[in-house]
């Protein structure tokens, strides 16, 4: 098995566990107990650490194709040792490293896009979403600002692009495609029951209005957007499964990492992991399209040639 394949399998397991952690964390302050809470907490925390390490490894391995991921991967892998430097997070040097990493991350978004084929243009809304949330995080940390925009609609825009990509990937209609559309349906049931609960139950709507934004980090400036966010989350999990069954598990994994980490930026990242994960996730999302067929870079070169010929 190749490096990227095996690391991605571990990354998929760890990001699922880390998502478990993200879900337990915000509801832990509520006086609610659920079975095996302690065990799930340990598993979730372990998943968070595994996600940090495997994202770093995947970034280093992917740097073969997307060069600007190398510093991001190294940063993630060495980040646990930062604790040896007392008060590193108070230092202005750390601030500048954060900005460098954010810029390199944005560079990686552009690099992977231009090195991929035209299908990757469908990920432009996702690229915009990751860039915007990164800016929101930088704004929160360094300017103490609050970028109050409707994140749920930005998420939906990103999701639309990914849905179209998932449908056109391989073949739109074929035996395997039809089976994929059906087999991915269980993905809908992760969040769809919550949707039906909240539209009829104000009590649960109030609870979920706190739990879902806390789990994903997404700020719902209009709390009545919750049902539509839950619908979007249901469809996104369906799309992730659809992509995986259609044969592009990388894209599914990449998008899962993006949706579970990108919005943590809105409240200031908290962890270096949440700053870097969406960038690496975006490269994983594009993995199958990198250097595959005619790339956007080729198109751009051709465009430049035409322009220079015309002049």
């Amino acid at each position, binding site marked *: 098995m190749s490096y990227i394949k095996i690391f991605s*399998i571990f990354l998929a397991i760890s990001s699922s566990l880390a998502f478990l952690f993200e879900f337990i964390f915000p509801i832990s*302050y509520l006086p609610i107990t659920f079975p095996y809470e302690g065990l799930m907490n340990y598993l979730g925390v372990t998943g968070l650490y*595994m996600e940090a390490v495997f994202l770093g490894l995947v970034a280093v391995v992917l740097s073969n194709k997307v060069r600007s991921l190398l510093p991001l991967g190294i940063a993630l892998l060495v980040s*646990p040792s*930062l604790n040896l430097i*007392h008060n590193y*997070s108070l230092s202005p040097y750390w601030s500048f490293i954060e900005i460098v990493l954010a810029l*390199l991350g944005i560079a990686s978004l552009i690099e992977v896009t231009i090195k991929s084929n035209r299908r990757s243009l469908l990920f432009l809304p996702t690229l915009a979403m990751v860039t915007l949330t990164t800016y929101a995080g930088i704004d929160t940390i360094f300017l103490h600002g609050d970028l109050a925009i409707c994140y749920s609609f930005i998420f939906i825009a990103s999701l639309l692009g990914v849905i179209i990509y998932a449908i056109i990937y391989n073949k739109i209609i074929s035996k395997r495609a039809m089976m994929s559309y059906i087999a991915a349906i269980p993905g809908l049931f992760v969040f769809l029951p919550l949707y039906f609960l909240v539209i009829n139950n104000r009590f649960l709507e109030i609870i979920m209005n706190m739990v879902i934004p806390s789990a994903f980090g997404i700020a719902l400036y209009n709390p009545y957007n919750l049902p539509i966010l839950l619908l979007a989350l249901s469809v996104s999990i369906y799309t992730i499964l659809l992509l995986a069954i259609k044969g592009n598990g990388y894209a599914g994994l990449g998008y899962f990492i993006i949706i579970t980490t990108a919005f943590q930026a809105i409240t200031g990242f908290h962890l270096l992991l949440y700053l870097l994960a969406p960038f690496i996730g975006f490269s994983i999302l594009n993995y199958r399209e990198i250097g595959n067929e005619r790339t956007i870079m080729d198109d751009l070169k051709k465009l430049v040639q035409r322009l220079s010929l015309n002049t």
Partner: protein
Amino acid sequence: MFFIKIIITLNYLIKIISPTFYPYYVEERFSSCEFKMRKKIPLLIALVAMLFSIMLAFENVPLAQSSPTIVAYKVVGSANLANPGSCSFWSDIPWVNLSLTANIPNAPTSGLTHYILVKAAWNGSDIFILVKWPAPNPAFGAWSAAAGALYPSATGPGLFRIIELMPGTTYKLLTNCTSYVSIVNGKSESGRLAFSYKGVTVLAPNGSQIRVLSNGTILFYHSLRPMEYIFYCNGLFYGYYTNSTWYYPDRVAMMWYMGTGTPTMDGMNIGGKYAGQVYDGYNLSVAGGSFKMPGGSANIWMWVSGATWNNATYDPAFKVHLWANESLTGLPYTDPDCGGFAVPLYTNNTNMYEVDCAGIWYNPVQSSGLNGSLFMIRTGAKWCNGYWTVEYVRSLTVPSNIAKYEPQIALNTTYYVAFAVWQGREGETLFDKSIVTPFVTLALSTASHPTPPPPLVISPTLMTVTVVGVVVAVVALAIIWIVYRK
């Protein structure tokens, strides 16, 4: 040069270990047996990485953080607790605005305080924490139930809590339970009370007292900790009842995480008086107030307007000089400063404790020793223009016997802290409160204040850092491009 060498070395290492990316390289150098061996390297690396991650998780090595939320600045001078927040050094330190949320999301009396403002400073011997939160209706004159219990003549609002049951709950008196006595609307009757809500029935203990309002709302009087748990777990807990003459005091609490690593939970359990309590047939596996985070513990600095606010007019405990009376408090000492204070609490997975030997609010953490511990965290408080301002002062270090329950505060350490606020008149009572969702970080800085706001809209520090960051990013990208060019 060093950076370039690192990248070249890494590139070489990737070439050596990666048969997938550089198959031509591998084919040239290795035999088929070696090639098979090499194919197992990814799995080996993945397993080592997984073990490394698990080790990090078990050792609770903090993951790299983006920035500390609260910075305590080094200042000269001491606190003026008579007028909290008035010292000149506070004006150089900006507020950190922390959002609060409901501890019980469905309760209409929970999460009514939406934010708390925090500043922190230290002067080499003491740490100062200044907090401020909106409270349009302050709970003046309300006794803290625990403090009121010490004083036989205590009268006034908030002596004990009243639970409002979920609207739609009905009650029935089971008259066949002849050994039970219940009080309904002030009238004592033989029988056991049974409450029903959406098919769930909860039986009340002997001596339960209820009042039914004209709109059908059922108020349950003198609720004990187990009853709160039982009502909550059965979906009958709606909130605490307040009116103009019955309300809880205002409160603010600051929690300091005392465990290792990064804490993931800042909540407390609802439960019994102690873990495993059997109450009227109900088994309560956890103690109310015990810390939810497995293996964790925390110190809490609790300020209560009806007990620890040095105001003889509005704080009934200070009005009757409660804390100067050893026979009432049961403590072998009094407060030498006769000032405001914050009650030190200690919570772990077992229970919530009070860091003294009297146990006025909760069980004492020790049966002897700890002299003076109740009055070690000094506070000053004022209510002005709809806001409470409370200033905490504590020495950075505490004696070793207290250090088991309270943090030693020093430079070069990141502390995890959380805040909770209660507005008693609004109904926020006991575990029904407004709380900071996650722990936030606090660290001591040797700077006297943050960079002062410049005349420019963009701070020069940010500008410099951004420009340097952009330059380094561009250089790094150029180096990577050159190295990989070929």
